[in-house]
């Protein structure tokens, strides 16, 4: 039982990190309907900036610069690449992001070399122990941060015109322009925000219990795909729920793998996809996504 609770809590906290990454996807998708494969490298960028500055600046300033930096990288990608595309096809733009990802990742891994960079975070490897259950402080922090950021976005989307502008721009740039939406600004903003979120996620992916930032860190972005999808690609709430579901599934599937041997071991990162497929069968647009229309 305690194991279960421990796995559950751990899953939830890990899930909140996935939720942050997923939110990054969601923001870009909402604004441009593009599935962003370059998110992994944005993550790496944010982490790298933070990690390489924390020695001189100290953790918090470094983190801020890291977030800002990742935002700039994201914005740069939009401005230098995405904006230049004249076509209308979103799957094509998705491929562009693959190219971008290759470029960024190569550059960052080159700089990283074989190092493992510590983040110098204040939480260290402290754990909170309640009876038999222990939970790392970093994880609690992750949970809180994710909760705050996502609520912030929910509010922003509900109470500012930003969300509307984004969706309008995504659905029909031409008509959105007629409404006075500044297309460039909207997608630029989206990419910047995605970058910033990636930086935050990177932080929590590289602090305890993981040793630090290194070239493989960005692989975690893969786990956010099922999260974003099963929640619904255009839904903020979806990102949160999706992230948590993925986190918990993964954690349980790993923790109980000896009980699940008939499925073969190492289900950890397969399980989320199975759950996702199951959910999509019931709800083709994810749990909270906007359904396709059938009106003529």
């Amino acid at each position, binding site marked *: 039982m305690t194991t279960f609770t421990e796995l559950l809590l*751990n899953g939830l906290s890990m899930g909140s990190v996935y939720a942050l990454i997923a939110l990054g996807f969601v923001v870009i998708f909402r604004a441009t309907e593009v599935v962003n494969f370059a998110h992994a490298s944005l993550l790496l960028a944010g982490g790298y900036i933070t990690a390489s500055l924390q020695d001189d600046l100290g953790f918090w300033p470094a983190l801020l610069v890291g977030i800002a930096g990742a935002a700039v990288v994201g914005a740069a990608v939009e401005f230098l690449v995405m904006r230049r595309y004249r076509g209308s096809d979103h799957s094509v733009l998705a491929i562009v992001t693959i190219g971008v990802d290759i470029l960024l990742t190569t550059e960052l891994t080159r700089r990283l070399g*074989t190092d*493992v960079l510590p983040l110098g975070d204040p939480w260290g*490897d402290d754990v909170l122990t309640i009876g038999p259950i222990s939970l790392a402080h970093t994880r609690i922090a992750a949970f809180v941060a994710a909760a705050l950021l996502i609520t912030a976005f929910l509010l922003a989307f509900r109470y500012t015109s930003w969300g509307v502008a984004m969706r309008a721009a995504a659905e029909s740039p031409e008509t959105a322009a007629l409404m006075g939406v500044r297309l460039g600004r909207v997608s630029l903003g989206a990419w910047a925000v995605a970058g910033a979120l990636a930086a935050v996620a990177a932080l929590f992916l590289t602090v*305890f219990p993981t040793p630090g930032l290194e070239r493989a860190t960005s692989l975690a972005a893969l786990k956010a795909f099922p999260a974003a999808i099963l929640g619904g690609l255009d839904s903020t709430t979806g990102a949160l729920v999706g992230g948590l579901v993925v986190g918990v599934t993964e954690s349980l599937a790993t923790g109980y793998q000896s009980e699940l041997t008939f499925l073969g071991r190492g289900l950890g990162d397969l399980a989320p996809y199975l759950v996702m497929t199951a959910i999509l069968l019931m709800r083709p647009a994810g749990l909270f996504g906007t359904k396709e229309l059938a009106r003529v």
Partner: protein
Amino acid sequence: ENDDGDKGDMGAGGVKTGDGVTAETIDLGVLTDMTGVYATLGKSVTQAQQLYVEQTNAGGGICGRKLKLTVRDHAYDPQKAVAAYTELEPKVLGFAQFIGSPFVAAVEQRVDGNKGLVLPQAWSANLLGSPYVRVVGSTYDLETINAIDFLMKEKGLKKGDKLGHVYFEGDYGENALKGSQHMAEEAGLTVVEQKIKPTDNDMTAQVSALKKAGVKAVVISAGPRQAASLVGVAAAGSFDVPVIGNNSAFAPQLLATQSGPALMKNYYVASPTLPIGADTAAAKKLVADYKKAHPEDSLDNGVVAGWTAASVFGEALKKACAEKDLTREGVGKALLTIDDFDAGFGVPQDFTDPKAPSSKESVILQPDKKATGGMKVVQQPGAADAATNYTTGG
């Protein structure tokens, strides 16, 4: 393009030569991964081998010929790897390095055909058996056996105990698992398996599971960061059992991170040779030279592995030269005659039996900030009885 050395012509000094060998140079191929998942290993190994080549050439080369390395970085992509092999194979005498055992397996048939010696940088028993694909040092299963033997002798693991084994999906992990399963039978342990993928960086769930199972010690056959995470979580969760890893499960860079202390406390590493920081003349010289050549790069056991492999190849060449036969076959034969070669890292290598690894010994190391390369020896080279009478199921 097939090439049995008999067709080989007489080169300088009446030495029979074939592919990859001219009067002036001996060409060796290096198929490495410096931009993919094994970049850390690939970089060190390659740089060490380049260092060996420079020094050998400075010393007049081998058989009056200069050694030449052609490096191809396949970034752990099968298509690139096979393409690169196809490209280099006709031009080189053999391969001083080949990272990625699946790819080695992929070209094994062809190697047997063209007889170009390959020294893979992987220690899986599945690679054994071909006279032209030779594993340098003990394989993962043997290493694991020695590791567990150490746990039992030194760390109070005893008959009837449960032993956790966290291992990578794939050749490395599964071969290591064979070792622990064998040892479990021998010594009456029960193994609690936890399979992970290279993408898993956070071992919390695994630790909870092992804790639940009540294991007394843990073997980890994964990458450095998984090891670090595992040890860190275990320590933080006041679950202090000894953890031991295979030689690929540690990197000195980790000591700088906040899992450093935990690693130094109760983490051990089994390695096929003495560490880079060993106090043998050869080791000290290598350290000095390597530091000079690559001041900013870390000294890890990849350097040792690369150096050892290169010197083994060099040794084979020298022997072949003595036999006046620098053809691929000649080199192959020569290697089969090497039965006690030590590149300076305390473990004699014996290549007379293609079905067996060149050694069954392991050294047990412990992370230590102060030591060069971040590891100090806690148990001198040796093979557990279980290891000596274990025949690798190639």
